[in-house]
């Protein structure tokens, strides 16, 4: 817009502000070794520990003939998403609001939404890197086959990342302080890990329990990833459950998020 007093060459130059925000937030992300360990190290480490138990490497008829270590690769993949989206992101975003960082940014030509978008992008990317790490370690150390239905796997992965980030965004929206965000994150963390199959892979759960868990975002994701890993296109029911969760959670987060 141009007025008598302000000429406006001022459409900010292309992507420069966004790139600067991304570079800055990526640097800050790199300065949190604890966060990096929990997102990138912990899920793979869990896989390694479990894979070193001899009985986990024997075919298990209860799992349809695959080994427990095979079943735990998708679990560790989902674990990285839960840690990233639910444990790591909400305290950061809530802290940015609590400490006036978003408000300070509101007084510049860049919208504070850039900061939130960047944080979600970085946490999503970290979860994907962690996924690749789990798949690689599973393949190299324990001879776990790579997903046979790669596109189906990638699609299920994408929807699971979106659902995890949306859940984290909702926690950020509902928490007034970063301490509350940490607390809510931890409370939601355990049921989500259970649904992802950390204690018992979803495919090994008794029928009724499995049906209920499949309606949760990470239960559905676990089933979809299992199907794609073994070469089938993931069931549209599981993908649909994931997509609905992603939409509902992000709509709720957008509805309740406060900039200050």
């Amino acid at each position, binding site marked *: *817009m141009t*007025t008598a*007093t302000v*000429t406006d060459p001022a459409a900010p130059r292309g992507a420069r502000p966004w790139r*600067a925000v991304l570079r800055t937030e990526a640097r800050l992300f790199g300065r949190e070794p604890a966060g990096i360990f929990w997102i990138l190290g912990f899920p793979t480490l869990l896989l390694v520990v479990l894979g070193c138990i001899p009985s986990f490497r024997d075919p298990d008829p209860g799992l349809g003939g695959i080994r427990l270590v095979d079943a735990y690769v998708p679990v560790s993949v989902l674990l990285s998403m839960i840690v990233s989206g639910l444990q790591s992101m909400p305290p950061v975003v809530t802290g940015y609001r609590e400490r006036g960082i978003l408000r300070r940014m509101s*007084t510049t030509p860049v919208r504070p939404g850039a900061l939130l978008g960047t944080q979600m992008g970085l946490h999503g990317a970290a979860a994907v890197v962690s996924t690749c790490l789990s798949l690689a370690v599973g393949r190299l150390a324990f001879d776990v086959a790579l997903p046979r239905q790669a596109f189906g796997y990638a699609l299920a992965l994408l929807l699971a990342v979106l659902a995890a980030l949306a859940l984290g965004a909702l926690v950020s929206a509902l928490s007034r302080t970063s301490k509350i965000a940490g607390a809510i994150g931890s409370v939601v963390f355990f049921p989500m890990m259970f649904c992802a199959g950390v204690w018992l892979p979803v495919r090994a759960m008794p029928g009724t329990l499995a049906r209920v868990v499949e309606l949760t975002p990470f239960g559905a994701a676990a089933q979809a990833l299992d199907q794609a890993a073994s070469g089938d296109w993931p069931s549209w029911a599981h993908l649909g459950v994931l997509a609905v969760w992603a939409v509902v959670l992000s709509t709720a987060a957008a509805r309740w998020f406060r900039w200050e």
Partner: protein
Amino acid sequence: MPNTPVTHTTPTAAGGSGPHPIIEVQSLTKSYAGRTVVDGVSFVVEEGEIFGILGPNGAGKTTTVECIEGLRVPDTGRIRVAGLDPVAEHAAVTRILGAQLQESELQAKLTVREALELYAAFYPSPADWRPLAERLGLTERLATRFGRLSGGQKQRLFIALALIGRPRVVVLDELTTGLDPRARRDTWELIEEIRTGGVTVLLVTHFMEEAQRLCDRIAVIDRGRVAALDTPAGLIGRAASSTTISFTPSSPLEHAVLAALPQVGSVQSKDGRITLSGTDETVNAVVTLLARHHITAHQLRVADATLDDAFLDLTGA
């Protein structure tokens, strides 16, 4: 106005060559949950001046400037910054208005250099951050993380960030609160330099000394209203009694004689020392009176009223 607002020197507000307004606030009101915080505030800030908003805590100062910054939407009233509406034309306003907010922080692990580079990238034609950092004494601290800066260093960084987009006006909200006296004085010098550089300053404060020393004009805000708007000298002149005279007479003096002098406010005496309030005229009258009665005034002291006195009178605090 072309894209080089920071370099030219600006006529002072008092200059007769037609100063023009850069911030206009008309009948601004804002309430939260039924409680009226700002109740019909109006004032105009001229380009090139240091304009103070002074008032007790909770008077509505911060809410007023947050409406100017476009962070809050006024209930009623009209605000223009260089002719722009801070809410409807927020993006355009952010390019000409630099803000330092009360109680805002940066990411704890962000270094000073990274903060300067980041904020410089937000603006279409930013100032070079190197000389800016130099001028604000931050050059030694470029590699220091925000979380490790002292209060004064943080405030200086926020001033740098407010200036980095080469704004025409900066809003500084309680800039020196929490600083030690030395850092506060350094900051005052900086603010004067900013104005010398041609940038209009809107300064929110509750420090009388700060307002008196820096501001060309001051709006005193009390309970959401503008209680007075004048130069510091003008405000002091409005104090009920602008001068205090005290002395110990060499021989006793009737109170009634003193009270009859022109423009005397009050007369008190304690342990033989007399204190009376009045104006410049009273001072002359007292001196003449004493001379006529051949009375010597020991330890004669004349003190001007300060902005403090004016403020207390205006706000009834």
